[in-house]
């Protein structure tokens, strides 16, 4: 720390600073490598194998006229919201297949959508560079699009959004390279998060009741962990060879997984501060676009651009099964709040519920 400050004072050149940064990076790698005394899959050899899974499509949600880009479950474990390329946002009771609300927004490529914790509103956004909140009216005839309220404003597309524990705040990620926390009522920016050097494609809030952190991943191939209070980047990981399309926390909050265009999914532990597993296969050559964990964290569901969902054994690193059914890219997978089902959204205009 001292040496670095001294550097600026004596007018060090950019290249000498870069050299310093490089040597620190090497030193850090060395320190971390000392802690890699075993591979996760080796340590997990003693764990019993997961039995054969018989996961099937239990519901097929048809109704979107174009690629479904995103979805999110409601806390009630059966409703969900989905958004598509043609600007449509639909709220479904996935159990009965009933479409409860449909909103047509004037913007195409609705890449992000989220259900509010209370279940009374949904948020969405995309190429309009905004995140808007739409209150869900009980009156079927009400024009929901008219009640839409713009909350977040970015300077490029909105890639992800999530409510942070209440209907009052939203966390967003954007193609403009930043993430931001917003107050819904006033639309005020509460905190911004800068550090990514390219589009941020995904974010996930830490599951802890007491924590104030979230993780983001982007086109700069990095995943960053942030402190929501200070806006600081707490931890950073760089091991993917292409865009990180999705990041998701392991249920305990001590680790997270990422999906990338390099066709691998990876698992990072925050306490060891390193990648502890890579999920890949010779026959999987298309990018992974989305990941989510089963309730116990034992299974990792990953959706790919080859239209399939691969189910990985998180601890052993092996693939347990592969789910076929979608007829185009899988854009999003999400396990329901009580872990009873997996929902997948696809460019084939449908959503599927698997159990």
């Amino acid at each position: 720390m001292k040496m670095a400050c001294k550097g600026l004072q004596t007018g060090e050149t950019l290249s000498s600073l870069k050299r310093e940064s490089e040597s620190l990076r090497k030193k850090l790698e060395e320190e971390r490598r000392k802690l890699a005394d075993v591979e996760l899959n080796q340590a997990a050899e003693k764990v019993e194998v997961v039995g054969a899974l018989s996961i099937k499509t239990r519901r097929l949600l048809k109704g979107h006229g174009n690629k479904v880009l995103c979805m999110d479950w409601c806390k009630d474990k059966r409703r969900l919201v989905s958004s598509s390329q043609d600007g449509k946002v639909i709220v479904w009771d996935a159990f009965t297949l009933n479409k409860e609300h449909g909103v047509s927004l004037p913007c195409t490529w609705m890449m992000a959508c989220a259900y509010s914790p209370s279940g009374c509103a949904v948020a969405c956004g995309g190429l309009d560079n905004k995140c808007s909140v739409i209150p869900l009216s009980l009156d079927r005839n009400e024009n929901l699009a008219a009640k839409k309220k713009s909350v977040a404003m970015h300077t490029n597309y909105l890639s992800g959004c999530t409510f942070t524990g209440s209907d009052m705040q939203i966390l967003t990620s954007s193609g403009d390279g930043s993430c931001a926390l917003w107050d819904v009522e006033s639309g005020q920016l509460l905190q911004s998060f800068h550090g990514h050097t390219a589009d941020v494609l995904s974010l996930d809030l830490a599951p802890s009741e007491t924590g104030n952190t979230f993780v983001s991943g982007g086109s700069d191939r990095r995943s960053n962990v942030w402190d929501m209070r200070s806006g600081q980047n707490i931890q950073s990981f760089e091991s993917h060879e292409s865009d990180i399309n999705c990041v998701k926390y392991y249920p305990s909050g001590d680790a997270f997984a990422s999906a990338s265009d390099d066709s691998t999914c990876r698992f990072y532990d925050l306490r060891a501060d390193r990648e502890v597993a890579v999920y890949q296969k010779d026959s999987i050559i298309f990018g992974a676009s989305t990941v989510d964990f089963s309730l116990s964290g034992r299974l990792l569901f990953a959706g790919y651009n080859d239209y399939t969902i691969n189910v990985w054994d998180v601890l052993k690193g092996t693939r347990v099964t592969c789910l076929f059914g979608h007829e185009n890219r899988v854009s999003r997978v999400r396990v329901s709040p009580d872990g009873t089902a997996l929902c997948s959204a696809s460019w084939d205009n449908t959503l599927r519920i698997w159990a």
Partner: protein
Amino acid sequence: MAEGAKEPVGVGTTDPEEDSPNMIVYRKIEDIVTRIQDENAGGVSIRTVKSFLSKIPSVVSGADIVQWLMKNLSVEDPAEAIHLGSLVAAHGYIFPISDHVLMLKDDGTLYRFQSPYFWPSNCWEPENTDYAIYLCKRTMQNKARLELADYEAENLARLQRAFARKWEFIFMQAEAQVKIDRKKDKAERKILDSQERAFWDVHRPVPGCVNTTEMDIRKCRRERNPHRVKKSVYGVPDDGQSQPSPVHISSQPTKKTTKEDVQKEINFLNSQLDRHCMKVSKVADSLMSYTEQFMEYDPFVSATEPSNPWISDDMSFWDLEASRDPSQQRVKKWGFSLEEALKDPAGRDQFLKFLESEFSSENLRFWLAVQDLKRRPLQDVSSRAQEIWQEFLAEGAPSPINLDSHSYERTSQNIKDPGRYSYEDAQEHIFKLMKSDSYARFLRSNIYQDLLLARKKGKSLTGKRLTGLMQSS
């Protein structure tokens, strides 16, 4: 087939974005198809097949491709190999010689490999005029194998209407192409015609088939051809009427690394070096024990009691969760950690009930109040923070909590400019207190144990039986 433009050159750029997401996949597929065709290195045998009075040059059976994929890409399930092979076909790298639908079949169906000239990695964005020329020239040649399919005939009719004014030009170009094609020898023509058709099957797919040239708009601007400027397949000069496709290009300027940037990196790296990290063996143990603990609650791994509503269409499982009587299994989870107990509203209620019975509920109520504060709209934060101070921390507060002097000092400083994180230190301290003290006693309490062991309160079993006997006699 275009005569002059044999070299696959990117539009305008000399240094293609090799690591853009699409390129990565194309390179992988290209590696596969190159290996498949390498007969000296375990590839499939590409041969000429005799059919009635003619010969079919340069083909391979679908079954052979499936076998190769299974063997060389370690695929155990043929269905997986077929799926992968179909994707390779759908992207235009292999194609069935007698079908427009680009998929792989695990049988004697014959396939051919696409010429590298037509590979998707060359970023073709063929114009509709090119497509019109192509369909037009097909109608000029008197060959059964070149007859238009129904959807192609429809496409041609539509293009004739759209390009009515320049149809003469298109017709002439088609004639020119036919002349060029006639110069080639028979076998070569069969191959080239099929490859050209496969190219169009990718860019103008059969209705109902996936258009694999569709791109994720978020990645568009980094592609070699971000504006998707049309490049003619038949060397037709752009007459200036075609518009580049509207694509969402970022207004983000490419940032140059400054001294400040690198200084920030250095500071960050130093902070990381100071961090105390755990060994992988230790985190592995932690991950394994967490997972093991929760596996019985994971519906994908352990059968649920009662059945999973999505599978059986029976909602009893959900009704039970919503009822006031939490199951033993659910109560057991509250014992895993204070976090788990507080995560469950029923657990929170029971813990609060226990604390009230001990007249020490202020800690939990404070903790809950601070959680609520963090989730309030901005305009409410200041007043709510003050309320919390009055209730729990001020002199003579009705529900005084026990903070160490350090946390108390910090908090009273924070409260001068109240914000949603003013009570973070205090909340952390109180949480630790609850965890080490009251939570442990809660787990030993009757309130908790009764629920865990499903001991019914009130009537004992014998009492019930006696009443029953008395009623029946």
